[in-house]
């Protein structure tokens, strides 16, 4: 197991480094830069040149890349032209907020999704099971801004349980943020629940029909034991993948929900950064997204290996 972990880690780091360089070059290659955004459409050429010189944007791209990589190795993520602050400083509180949001959403969604998926998967044909599945399908396929708006309408306007628009800044303490986390977290949780539950349900249903589950029942093994020891570990692997992808999404893909609720997380920051053409910040956010995804993927694989001895042994797929 350790050999596998080390190999995967090394590979992931390698992929990440390559991606980092490519992303930087990619963003730098796009037309326009932070100065055009900062100074607007009617900026004069001299002002643009001045701005670029001030911010080191007039150097050749490869040199900028080199400087950036050098900075990266020192732990310096770059500088935000628009906000006039180092990227690291700007991102830190947002990362904390993002983790709070993702954490709350995860707690709301994952345990429930797996439990409900297990319960409905065992009785796939029942009315309740199919209704839940359809409801989840609806929740999953609606655009996030629709779900967010509907939840906002219901929970904030009609039955005012939760505060609506966040009037907090990103630096507020967690206690202050808490009342404002709920709406975005619930919206995200609904989506995550739908995805994970459906995956679990389909997987449990398919696994229940496999010969070994049947064989266990025919041996007289109690149903609860069959579900717990035979079906669940075999049904989990595909859902583990879904959990990993959705968990990564909770940290990196929440743009729309954060805009709707004005939540000061990474999603909002990304939207603003792109509008401001803040290269360093954009690159840092993209790389964070990649790192999160790679890590989640890696963890998912590790968990699956733990669950399925055949994967550990390297039994090939026929």
């Amino acid at each position: 197991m350790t050999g596998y972990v080390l190999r995967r880690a090394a590979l992931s780091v390698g992929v990440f480094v390559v991606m980092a360089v490519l992303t930087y070059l990619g963003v730098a290659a796009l037309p326009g830069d932070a100065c055009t955004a900062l100074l607007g459409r009617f900026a004069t050429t001299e002002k643009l040149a001045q701005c670029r010189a001030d911010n080191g944007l007039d150097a050749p791209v490869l040199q900028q890349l080199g400087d950036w990589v050098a900075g990266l190795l020192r732990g310096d993520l770059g500088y935000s032209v628009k906000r006039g602050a180092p990227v690291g400083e700007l991102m830190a509180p947002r990362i904390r907020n993002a983790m709070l949001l993702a954490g709350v959403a995860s707690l709301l969604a994952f345990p429930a999704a797996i439990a409900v998926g297990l319960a409905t998967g065992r009785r796939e044909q029942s009315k309740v099971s199919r209704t839940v599945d359809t409801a989840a399908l609806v929740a999953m396929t609606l655009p996030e801004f629709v779900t967010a708006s509907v939840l906002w309408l219901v929970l904030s306007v009609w039955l005012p349980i939760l505060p609506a628009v966040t009037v907090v800044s990103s630096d507020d303490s967690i206690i202050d943020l808490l009342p404002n986390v709920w709406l975005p977290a619930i919206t995200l949780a609904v989506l995550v629940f739908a995805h994970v539950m459906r995956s679990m349900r389909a997987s449990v249903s398919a696994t229940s029909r496999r010969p070994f589950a049947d064989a266990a029942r025919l041996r007289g093994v109690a149903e609860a034991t069959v579900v717990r020891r035979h079906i669940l570990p075999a049904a989990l692997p595909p859902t583990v993948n879904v959990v990993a992808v959705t968990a990564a999404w909770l940290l990196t893909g929440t743009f729309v929900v954060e805009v709707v609720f004005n939540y000061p997380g990474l999603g909002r920051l990304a939207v603003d950064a792109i509008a401001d053409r803040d290269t360093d910040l954009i690159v840092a956010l993209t790389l964070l997204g990649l790192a999160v995804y790679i890590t989640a993927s890696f963890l998912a694989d590790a968990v699956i290996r733990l669950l399925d001895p055949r994967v550990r042994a390297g039994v090939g797929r026929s």
Partner: protein
Amino acid sequence: MSGPAIEVEGLTIAPCGAGVGGAVLRDIGLRVEAGTRLGVVGESGSGKSTLLRAMVGNCGRGLEVVAGSARTAGHDLFALPDGDRRALLGTAVALVPQSVGLSLTPHLTVEAQFRDVGMGDRTSELLDEVGLRGESMRSRYPHELSGGEQQRVLLALGLARDPGVLLLDEPTSALDVGVADGILRLLEQTQERRGLTLVVVSHDLGVIERVATRVVVTRSGAIVEDESLEQLMRSPRHPYTRALLDAAPSLGQRHARRGNEGDSIASTEQVVRADALTVVRTSAEGGRARRASWRSTTALDGVTIEIRRGEILGVIGESGSGKSTLLKTMCGVLTPASGTLAMSDGANLATPLRKRPSHLLRRIQMVMQNPDDSLNPAHTVRRILQAGTSHDDDASAALLAAVHLERSLLDRRPGSLSGGEKQRVAIARALARDPEVLLLDEITSALDVTVQAAVIATLVELHERLGTTMVFVSHDLAVVSSIADRIAVLRNGRLLEVADTARLLEHPGDEYTASLLALARR
């Protein structure tokens, strides 16, 4: 226990909501006395597996009991509440299911599976009883066990709680002859030692002959024969049973049209020759790991053999012997690591399939084992037969006629054909290119015994008419010996011997061949 161990009366089982019309089991009645051994034989779809499940009070998904009852160990199973019925499973009656590879939970060790039925501390003892070394087996995972070992573990699990009745569904179907023999011997010993009532289901009459004292024959959901074994073998009452007995060849019995050695058309002219042929196969390991580590086995090791024009050469061996590898190398799917393989005029057969010129391609054609896999389900029979040729419908119809199929099949798709029909279409397809050598890779192994007999008959007829050289690979010595002129014996990639059929049967040159013959004769 007084009374019969198992008593089934008027049992009819059908898909839920379908009613008697679509019944899977129709008005079944039978009695099994305690301590006896019943064999249930029938072809696929006859309902034998469903009958076995009914004896534990389980219907199978989507099925329901429409009429009748099943009593096992004195309990009317379908009348019991669920809890009570489940309590009987494993304790009064145990079912050992088929497809052993799929019936053991892949992520649980052997010991864990025993713990589930509350017999964790008896694991070693039970494993020893079925001939496995308990101490080393207990912590293994199912995928680490061979087919025979898996079967024994399932048997031990069934016996764990000392049931009085043991039901087995196809206990030897996926196993090599030697391994199967071991399992059957184990069954006999276990039944005697524990005084069990045994019911064994199999499509293989040979297995039933070996194990049962009483036999029930199923066909299309009904019982057509219920006899003692000797009575059945001597003079069966039902014509279907007669057909089953006739269809399965016994060792040494020549196929009617093949005649004896002296009459064979085969000449001594060589058509294909292999010299010191060695083929290495690699299988990918590594599952999810990016870098797969490859395990290579020498599938064929220095095989030297010649194939004579116009003969039927039988190739026999157990799994892993290299017989399929030999065929695949001949047709170019695999390439040799060393040695030569060529046709009599020098055409090199060591070239891989993709690189062979078309005139070489057509000279060697193959029919594969699984008819469900060898025909493209999205194509019509017409397309299958005409692809790559310039044949028109008349030519295709002639091919179909040669394998005793109707012209109307041209418009049908494989999904609507039976296994036997599909296999015959596959043969017709191979013949469409008028090959010099026809390779047949276990073509009857996936078929029911009566269908197998029909396909073999067709094959023999074709051989008579066309004189095509054929290489017939099988694990079934009886079938091979009934049609082949010569037989080659492979084991672990090596050619042990090759000889005329009659001589091989009477005086096998190799000890291994002799043991195979002995097993086939049982």
